[in-house]
């Protein structure tokens, strides 16, 4: 997994998004075992407390679960993964709309662009 952090969003929130993306894209398939908190923290170059917080949040959202002694795993629940995909897509759409709005694009212009690569 590639770890890049930027801007003003809290680090833990950026980790949550990065892991979510890895799960949705299949890089971390359903049932895959996650590395330990310390290994992940080392890999991402972040504070272990921050990594722990991100994993707890992913757990709260149902994307990963903990087996008491055996570690942390990606959920096998396809519905949860689909919901995460929609949520991430919603975020990208919002970013897209903001950027296009700044360019002065109307929704109809955007649709034309998306559908046909047409000049607007």
């Amino acid at each position, binding site marked *: 997994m590639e770890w890049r*952090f930027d801007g*003003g969003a809290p680090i833990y929130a950026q980790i949550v998004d990065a892991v979510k993306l890895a799960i949705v894209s299949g890089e971390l398939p359903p049932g895959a075992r996650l590395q330990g908190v310390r290994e992940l923290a*080392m890999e991402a*170059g*972040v504070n*272990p407390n921050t990594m722990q917080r991100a994993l707890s949040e992913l757990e709260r959202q149902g994307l990963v679960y903990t087996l008491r002694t055996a570690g942390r795993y990606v959920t096998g629940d396809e519905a949860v993964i689909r919901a995460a995909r929609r949520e991430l897509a919603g975020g990208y759409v919002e970013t897209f709309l903001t950027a296009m709005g700044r360019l002065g694009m109307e929704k109809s212009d955007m649709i034309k662009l998306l559908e046909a690569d047409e000049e607007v």
Partner: protein
Amino acid sequence: MAILECKGLSKSYGPVRALDGVDFAVASGRIVGLLGPNGSGKTTLIKLANGLLTPSAGQILINGQAPGVETKKAVSYLPERSCLPEWMSAAQLMGFYGDFYADFDRAVAEAMLARLNIDVKARLKHLSKGNREKVQLIMVMARRAQLYLLDEPIGGVDPAARDFILSTIISNYNPTATVILSTHLIADVERVLDDVIFINQGKVVLAAPADQLREQQGKSVDQIFREVFRC
């Protein structure tokens, strides 16, 4: 109980107030950035915590005690400048640290030195500046201390060495220990910090969890620092 607590802590050098009524407490299990521009009082604060200076007013307490023999057992200190005898080799240093500190874990130090391919038989003066600094950090981090006080651990080293230092801090971190590191290179360290303390002209101007600052202000700690300390 807080591992480190300052109460109305002041230190003057003649007419210069290096620290002026500093109040804060640091809990166990945190990695804390002591951030401020040059001359803001960072090194003075760390020296006070080590008992190398005495307060002009107020108190600094480690585990509720004034700095002294007992607190030095719990505190592992990386000074701003190298303090190690240059004629010693890393192997000799490990013996030296083992004699001085009951909590020194030689196996940990050996493993880190081996990973960096540092010749443990070479005298420090024959190592590069970067390797000398790494040896010193390894000695400091190989202690099983409760409080690590690192004064500018990443100043003056290249980006790869910076990564090594930060990963050493993360990998040696244990949930009951606290790390306080001073620096003015915020962008490099902000990912590893739980809390930040901004210090300027001897006063604490901001103390908060790093992610909380990012969340509330929508900016990186580095950006916030640049705004607070705009010249």
